[in-house]
């Protein structure tokens, strides 16, 4: 077991994560009923207010806090207990992140920031909302540098050695995060804050959107890579095999740094302010990310097959039956992976330049990110939560909790299957995202969205309700394993942190030479962004003043 103080830090991160999860999923429940005209909000509450809360609390707060809990625990486990300085800065980072979170959330609750989690200008929130966001990012930076400091101490004490895979992957994710945030920090500090506080009258909208998406796409990899850490490092241990290939795993991770940043324009394919050449270049770079993604898919299947064959499986797919289905730590993550197959395929469609026109701003997109971040990432985090909290609190993961955990992941899967399938199809039929109920003057196309079995807002609402039920079961499991489950006194009751062995003997050293990867990353960023961004600044159209539409 890791040091008590490190466990305490991780538990605080998890607690905040699940408070955000509780409020966020409640907002999701309201949304599906509002869209289906079964619920009308009171006058003091606005659809965009709850949708902002949903996006911010789940996609930003839940994910980030959980990720740091996982990193703190895994780093302490793989490279040792935090020193006093690392610990101090980790706590400072935690509190700054939390203060930013509370400030931004308070502004949403006060109705001062119904601008959605993308906070596109010229929608203008209270300046304090942007201050909250800035503090949030700065807080994560402090925590990130604390972890980097911890890693550097290890490197110094283990000269010439490759770091353990978990630590390497954590640092990769953090490097990605630090570079990604440069975009959002630039736009928030130099554009939004002066504008929202009235120090400047107008904002350069296209530039602000581009800087946001410079951050927004790698943001999704900041969510995904921690899930991949679990897939690469934790799943093999549960399966009883070694990490399939240490070098492949490291190479895949550094490729994610390279190809997840210079690609933000794939979210802006319909915007007239960017020329086709730069859009196309970034589309090509986006497609490069398929390489490490398929390397990951290959590794996962290889783990399964090797483990199954070790247990005596024969034939082409015999290993499938030998997987540890009764172990909820495995089954949860397996389902998460399965959802990511259509999720990733949908992402390729979204990024396919012209095809984006079919799906842009429709409910398809909502379906898409609920089967990428909303399930593959979130359910991997759930699968980690089941044992991570007992591991940290020293409590048992009891039989009844295990059964409940199965109920939780199965209800989540069913709910998500219904909701996201409906969203995908509705989107293809033209139903827009980010709208409350509307029948568009009884237009026949719009009326179609309310009947049909899989193609209906009703299905979406049923799915959403099952999802919310599942979320509440999870909250119950979290509370139990935090405070109430019996303490694990006997050794066999103690919950372990499953971390697979990784054979580094054949791994080339240059894979851990950060200057190479950071250097190439910046070179690609400059190629993809320098010219279009500078022309947005030099040939800026008249800026826009702020609008408050709610």
């Amino acid at each position: 077991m890791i040091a008590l103080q490190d466990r305490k830090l991780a538990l605080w991160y998890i607690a905040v994560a699940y408070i955000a999860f509780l409020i966020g999923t409640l907002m999701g429940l309201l949304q599906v009923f509002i869209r289906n005209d079964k619920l009308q909000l009171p006058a003091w509450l606005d659809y965009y207010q709850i949708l902002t809360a949903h996006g911010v609390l789940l996609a930003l707060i839940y994910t980030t806090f959980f990720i740091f809990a996982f990193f703190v625990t895994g780093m302490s486990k793989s490279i040792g207990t935090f020193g006093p300085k690392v610990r101090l800065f980790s706590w400072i980072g935690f509190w700054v992140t939390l203060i930013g979170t509370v400030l931004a959330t308070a502004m949403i609750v006060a109705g001062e920031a119904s601008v959605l989690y993308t906070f596109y200008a010229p929608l203008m929130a209270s300046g304090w909302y942007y201050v909250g966001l800035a503090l949030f990012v700065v807080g994560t930076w402090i925590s990130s540098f604390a972890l980097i400091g911890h890693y550097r101490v290890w490197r110094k004490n283990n000269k010439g050695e490759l770091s353990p895979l978990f630590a390497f992957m954590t640092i990769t994710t953090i490097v990605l995060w630090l570079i990604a945030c440069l975009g959002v920090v630039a736009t928030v500090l130099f554009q939004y804050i002066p504008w929202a506080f009235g120090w400047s009258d107008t904002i350069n909208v296209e530039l602000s959107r581009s800087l946001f998406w410079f951050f927004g796409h790698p943001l999704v990899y900041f969510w995904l890579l921690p899930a991949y850490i679990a897939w690469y490092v934790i799943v093999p241990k549960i399966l009883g095999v070694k990490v399939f290939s240490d070098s492949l795993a490291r190479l895949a991770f550094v490729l994610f740094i390279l190809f997840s940043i210079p690609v933000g324009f794939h979210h802006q394919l319909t915007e007239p302010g960017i020329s086709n050449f730069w859009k196309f270049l970034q589309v090509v770079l986006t497609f490069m990310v398929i390489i490490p993604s398929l390397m990951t898919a290959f590794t996962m299947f290889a783990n399964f097959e090797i483990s199954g064959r070790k247990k005596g499986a024969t034939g082409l797919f015999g290993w499938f039956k030998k997987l540890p289905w009764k172990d909820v730590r495995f089954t949860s993550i397996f389902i998460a992976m399965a959802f990511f197959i259509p999720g990733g395929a949908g992402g390729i469609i979204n990024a396919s330049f012209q095809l984006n026109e079919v799906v842009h701003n429709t409910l398809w997109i909502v379906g898409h990110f609920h089967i990428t971040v909303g399930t593959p990432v979130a359910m991997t985090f759930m699968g980690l939560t089941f044992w991570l909290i007992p591991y940290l609190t020293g409590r048992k993961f009891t039989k009844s909790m295990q059964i409940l955990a199965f109920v939780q992941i199965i209800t989540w899967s069913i709910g998500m299957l219904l909701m996201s399938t409906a969203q995908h199809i509705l989107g293809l039929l033209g139903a827009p995202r980010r709208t409350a109920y509307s029948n568009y003057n009884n237009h026949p196309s719009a009326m179609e969205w309310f009947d049909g079995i899989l193609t209906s807002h009703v299905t979406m609402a049923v799915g959403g309700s099952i999802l919310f039920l599942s979320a509440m079961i999870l909250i119950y499991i979290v509370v139990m394993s935090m405070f109430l489950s019996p303490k694990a006194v006997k050794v066999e009751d103690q919950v372990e942190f499953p971390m697979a062995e990784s054979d580094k003997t054949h791994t080339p050293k240059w894979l851990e030479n950060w200057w190479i990867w950071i250097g190439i990353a910046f070179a690609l960023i400059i190629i993809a962004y320098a010219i279009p961004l500078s022309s947005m600044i030099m040939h800026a159209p008249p800026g826009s003043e702020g609008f408050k539409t709610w």
Partner: protein
Amino acid sequence: MSKNNEHDGLDLRGTLASVMVVGVIIVVMWVVVYMMYLGR
């Protein structure tokens, strides 16, 4: 780097088949949306 690595002698036919299935799913989904794009 030595030639005899830890992956010698592994039977990964199922893995090959599985990644092919993933590839087919990607292509089929893509073609469906592409057809819709052409049809509009």
